[in-house]
């Protein structure tokens, strides 16, 4: 069941090695509470000390018609006693709560893997809804022969377990997910206590629901313990993963970005203003930040995406750190306002939680197809720094970096994340905040010298202009989107002035490259036959694929770019040190094009736009083909 190729330890070489990593996928109807089940299983797994990575995979519809394949909601978790960097290629265990869940999820199940199905839901009606031909039941027709199948009537067992609480049928069946969770907890030897505590808290106003859910949880657990099923349904123990000593917690990208933005504002010594408009999958950042008012955070749910960014620009103008967030379609609407922030040279952080596009696209599925939009997607010559987070934990650092660049260089900054990072959870070693170097902002308050005029567009050594807050006596001035005169900031349409200002804006952003770290190599040598260059959430599968290939003796390295624009100064030379360059991306080749343009290198694309993350094997195959 191990997902990473490596040398066997003596224990593994023994007859019955404990698995080092297991991939479990919970799948059911979107009303079955699979995300909740997965989330709680994740928590329990984190507390057991395993490393883990999750992949919530849910439909865009809130309540799609029950029992249909497009209403299936799934949650995948990969956990183990070694470093886990992806949510796993192929599940070892699939828990299918209905025929539709089985139908849509079994194709990805590992051969020989285990299917646990709720027999009670495999009725003629549900089978028909899932699209099985009349009279066909996959549980009985041998079509699942390459897997091990265990089915029992989870619905009935749940009803029996919660009977004493006098719930109606519908309410009783809602406890099914807790029954299933109980069974999963038993299978992997996870503690039930945190879930029991959580249920008590969640249903504190309806204790009978808490009791019924706990009873279902316990019943599922007891079923695993006592039912004489045997065979594949056995208990596994996954040892805790080795990790650096310290305090850990699980974190999703949406949480870590929120924390990182708060940290960034604190390090800059500024209050934060967040203007947002609800959009999947970015809304979670607005939700998190709206609870953090004691950190000087003001959140504003604006009337639209444009008002969200425009209000953030207004707040930056008035001396706060303005932040806005959205997903691709919303970012498109913000384009003109980004130009205003570029022209007025005000700090601003724009978070884009990318999703499948174009247009409304795939709201709940992940994609990396907004890189062109981030780098180039504005009218005029409108250079703007772009940073991309690779994982939920990394998003914390990236958010701080975005705040640093925005305030130090007086510029809007785009932070790219995606639906996968936003929703996925991973263990996070809680950082020591005292280890971060503050970057305090100083507003200009000193008056021009005698005989001098005020210069709101004067430049410091980084080419940044001074930040002057309204309310400051003696420094009254006007700014706006019309071209500015060099230094004074007055309206100026003169040809030479526009040339100079365009150059200055470009040089300022290009110059950020002097203030970011050199590009490092994640894995492998600094020169060689092949380098896999990634950005964003493809980090996990690329890293694992390169690791596996290197263990097979292949000469391949992994480079992962955080600073998409401007790029690290050494990146061109670094890439030129390899014979071949492959760029895996969840788009049709956007970073690839930028790399070719910037460095004239022969970067080759490896693309996937299915709404699903890369599988390790897909990248591994590309490596092998390139080096064959």
């Amino acid at each position: 069941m191990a997902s990473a190729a490596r040398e066997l330890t003596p224990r593994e070489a023994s007859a019955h090695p404990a698995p080092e990593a297991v991939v479990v996928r919970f799948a059911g109807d979107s009303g079955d509470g699979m995300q909740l089940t997965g989330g709680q299983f994740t928590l329990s797994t984190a507390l057991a000390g395993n490393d883990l990575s999750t992949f919530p995979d849910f439909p865009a519809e809130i309540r799609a018609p029950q029992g249909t394949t497009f209403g299936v909601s799934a949650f995948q978790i990969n956990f183990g006693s070694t470093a886990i960097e992806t949510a796993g290629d192929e599940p070892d265990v699939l828990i299918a709560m209905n025929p539709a869940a089985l139908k849509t999820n079994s194709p990805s199940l590992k051969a020989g893997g285990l299917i646990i199905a709720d027999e009670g839901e495999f009725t003629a009606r549900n089978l028909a809804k899932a699209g099985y031909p009349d009279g066909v039941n996959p549980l009985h027709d041998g079509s699942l022969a390459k897997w091990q199948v265990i089915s029992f009537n989870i619905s009935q067992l749940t009803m029996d377990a919660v009977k004493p609480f006098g719930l109606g049928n519908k309410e009783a069946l809602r406890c099914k997910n807790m029954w299933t969770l109980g069974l999963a907890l038993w299978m992997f030897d996870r503690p039930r206590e945190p879930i029991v505590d959580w249920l008590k808290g969640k249903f504190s106003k309806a204790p009978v629901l808490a009791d019924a859910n706990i009873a279902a949880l316990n019943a599922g657990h007891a079923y695993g313990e006592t039912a004489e099923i045997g065979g594949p349904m056995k208990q596994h123990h996954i040892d805790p993963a080795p990790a650096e000593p310290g305090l850990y917690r699980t974190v999703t990208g949406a949480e870590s970005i929120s924390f990182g933005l708060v940290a960034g504002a604190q390090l800059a010594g500024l209050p934060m203003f967040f203007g947002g408009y609800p959009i999947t999958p970015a809304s979670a950042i607005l939700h998190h930040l709206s609870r953090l008012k004691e950190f000087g955070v003001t959140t504003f749910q604006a009337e639209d995406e444009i008002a969200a960014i425009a209000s953030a620009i207004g707040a930056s103008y008035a001396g706060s750190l303005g932040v806005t967030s959205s997903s691709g379609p919303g970012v498109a609407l913000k384009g003109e306002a980004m130009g205003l922030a570029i022209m007025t040279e005000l700090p601003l952080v724009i978070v884009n939680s990318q999703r499948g596009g174009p247009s409304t696209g795939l709201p709940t599925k992940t994609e990396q197809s907004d890189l062109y939009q981030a780098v180039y997607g504005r009218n005029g010559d409108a250079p703007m720094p772009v940073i991309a987070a690779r994982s939920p934990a990394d998003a914390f650092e990236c958010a701080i970096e975005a705040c640093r660049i925005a305030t130090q260089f007086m510029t809007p900054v785009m932070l790219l994340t995606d639906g996968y990072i936003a929703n996925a959870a991973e263990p996070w070693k809680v950082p020591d905040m005292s280890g971060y170097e503050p970057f305090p902002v100083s507003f200009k308050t000193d008056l021009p010298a005698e005989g001098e005029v005020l210069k709101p567009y004067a430049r410091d050594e980084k080419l940044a202009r001074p930040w002057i807050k309204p309310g400051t006596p003696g420094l009254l001035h006007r700014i706006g989107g019309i071209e500015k005169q060099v230094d004074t900031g007055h309206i100026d349409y003169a040809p030479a002035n526009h040339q100079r200002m365009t150059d200055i804006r470009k040089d300022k952003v290009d110059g950020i490259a002097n203030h970011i770290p050199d590009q490092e190599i994640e894995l492998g040598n600094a020169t060689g036959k092949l380098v896999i260059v990634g950005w964003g959430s493809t980090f996990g599968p690329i890293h694992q694929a390169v690791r596996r290939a290197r263990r097979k003796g292949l000469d391949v390295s992994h480079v992962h770019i955080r600073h998409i624009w401007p790029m690290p100064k050494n990146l061109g030379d670094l890439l030129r040190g390899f014979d071949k360059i492959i760029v895996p991306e969840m788009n049709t080749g956007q970073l690839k094009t930028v790399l070719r343009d910037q460095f004239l290198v022969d970067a080759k694309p490896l693309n996937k736009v299915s709404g699903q993350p890369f599988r390790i094997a897909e990248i591994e195959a590309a490596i092998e083909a390139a080096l064959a």
Partner: protein
Amino acid sequence: MNEMTTIKTSPKDWETDQEVRWCPGCGDYAILKAVQRTMPELGVRPENTVFISGIGCSSRFPYYMETYGFHTIHGRAPAVATGVKLANPELDVWIITGDGDALSIGGNHTMHILRRNLDCQILLFNNEIYGLTKGQYSPTSRVGTRSPSTPFGSVDRPATPCSFALGSGARFVARGIDTHKSLPSVLKAAHAHKGASFVEIYQNCIVYNDDVFAPFTEKKAAPEGQIWVEHGSPVLFAGGTKGLALDHQNLRLHVVDVADGDWQAAGVIVHDETNRGLAQMLIDYAPGEGGPVVLGVIYNSPRPTFDSAVIEQNEAAAKGKKPDLQSLISKGQTWQVTKEPHAL
């Protein structure tokens, strides 16, 4: 606006060194002068004053005011202003906009700033035309307006700015005329109102829509064409010889003659600026509908502002909590790893 120490300034102190670039004879000059004349009377400080505009002829306004100023993008001034005010509620925020900026491209933001009641003054320069883009018809142009984009006349019905404002939940709605001597008093009332104060100013575009308001703004038309309302006073015009009375049967206003100043006998109504229903009827008494135009403070009924509510909630939610980031990120379900890592 906030309570501030009253300071002495002159209109000159509110002028910038920038050359004013409107067309000669544009109504905007008169409005600029009126605002610069009004500011000293408000006793406010230039550095605490921010003029925020969108795009259009009117939106050049901030460049000519010796205050802080932000010339933003088309239609978005209310959104920028919301951020400015929430970030620093001490600032006195003025929004300068036009009929296209506020009611066409920025209609959504205008609606929401009024609904939320952000404390600011919104001056909508209504010239019923797109001036800066060279004369296309606007959302307030009358049906039949011939313009480069409507050579055979516009066919869509215009919006009524004050009606839009009232319908959006505005708590202060007033009307003025660019060149009229009463404009400063309307602006002063707008400033005194705490909340979003909406002021429509009929502004003559000398190039593309000249004299569109002349039927009631011209000197000789003014007495019959303008009804200046004042809270607590009878709604009279034409030198007190006419007034507005309520037609009880049809629930609408109509003009009545007042003999010998006895407005009570004529049934003339007394203006109550807190009466929303009356405000709606006064607003609807508009040109093109055959009647004179109602001007002055039509509606003024303050209620708590958005900015004060946000700040109050921010403070209440933060009360007793320490902004300790380390403890925030260390919260929740955590676990401690104590052992040294062993090699993978």
